[in-house]
């Protein structure tokens, strides 16, 4: 029987590295978009009224 132990571990950990890298990338991106800045509280007020939102034609 072929031993797939190390290929499976490499597969899993490369997936983990991909996700950790992705998380780091999007975290930095979220910082640039001001999610931890002075306007970061706006979404919490907006969501309270999301059932009354009018549709915007794109």
């Amino acid at each position: 029987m072929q031993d797939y132990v190390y290929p499976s571990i490499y597969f899993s950990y490369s997936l983990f590295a991909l996700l950790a890298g992705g998380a780091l990338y999007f975290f930095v991106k979220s910082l640039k978009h001001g999610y931890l800045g002075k306007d970061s509280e706006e979404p919490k007020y907006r969501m309270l009224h999301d059932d009354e939102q009018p549709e915007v034609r794109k």
Partner: protein
Amino acid sequence: MPEEINKSVDTRSSAASGPALVHDDTTAKWFLISSIAYFFIVGIIAVTIAAKFVWPSLLGTVQYLTYGRLRPLHVNGMLFGWLLAADMGLSFFMVPRLCAVKLWSEKLGVATAILWNAIILGAVVSLLMGWNQGLEYAELPMPLDIAVVVAWIMFGVNIFMTIASRKYDQMYVSIWYIMGTILWTAFVYLTGNFAVLFATGTNQANLNWMYVHNAVGLIFTPVGLAIAYYFIPKASNTPLYSHKLSMIGFWSLAFVYVWTGAHHMLHGPISQWLQTISIAFSVMLLIPVWAVVYNFFATMKGQWHQLKDNVPLKFLMSGVVFYLLTCFQGPMHSLRTVNAIVSKTDWIPGHAHMAVLGAFSFFAIAGCYHMIPRAFKTTIFSEALANWSFWFLMFGGLGFFVTLWLGGFWQGWQWNNPSIPFIDTVIALKPVWIVRFFSGILMFLGIVSFGYNIMATILGAKDRPAAA
């Protein structure tokens, strides 16, 4: 605070124009109705299993009704049939509203719901027949695993395309959690159901535990928190305490959670460095957990009186307390000294049930109670019955959790004493399992009252139109 809310509304209404947005919610309804049906059916199986602990010869030797067949069906039915399906349904409800656009494709959503139901029904048949891969939480046979991957891609495409067409740049924290859930589930599910088949021995066990722990930590936790972050402000009509803190909670969860699974294998044959890493990351979990819980408690400051007659809020805030307790237990369980006592004992199902039932199912039930009347433009069939469902589930749950924690410690201490024959430690736990069975009956009554209330709400929707 109210001034800021009004300011936000003014900004919104002046910025927008055009016809009012009406959400279809067909997909959300499909998912929620079917998930509640599975909650009831699998609840019967759960009580049957609890009874088998006390009366092992119950149902005789009918192969389809043996413990080995029913237990995987209970686990998969509750995780994928009830909870994940309910979470997906609630995601289909929340995301379009938070993005202020319609769902990208209701047709694709309904197709996803049909495929998901086919998977669950296939799981019922295959697991009762004994077609089982023999890996915890990953019991489903390969064809169904592949179908789950296809359904998840369909779900992910629909949600991401909806988010891509959103009206506002800044996304509310629930959207971040739902996006995280979709990506992490892909990673966790592929590892736990496919990569694990190519590994052997200790490596296979390590991969399997990474999957089992992260199934709760990177699938049900993020989507459960997305629901809590949405419905706690909604149900209490109070803005979240801090959106910034919620983002800190999200990112700390994203970086910390994935390494914790190995704490279920301490004192086993895995490498010491991996054990130490899992302990360190498990303890670090206290950071995202406390960030989340503090945010919810601070949101409720001055609003606790609302719990008196607001059933969804009762479920939500009880769920938050259970979440805090669960996530305090987790890091403590990962410490080598504590682990030496409780690992592999009945303490673990006590802990896992508090996470999946006490925290995340409570969030999902609250979401159903909030969403169903709005989706069907009606009012809840019975507030009193909703209240009964809460107390049944609360007392049933508490009875279950507490007796298993105590029983687990007791079991662990006995196992650590080599002079006690193993079979004596099994016999000693019978009183614990009797309490577990009667707690299960209470929980099942909670499920029945919840399911009946939702069914009566939907069937009588035309007789009780919601006030405009």
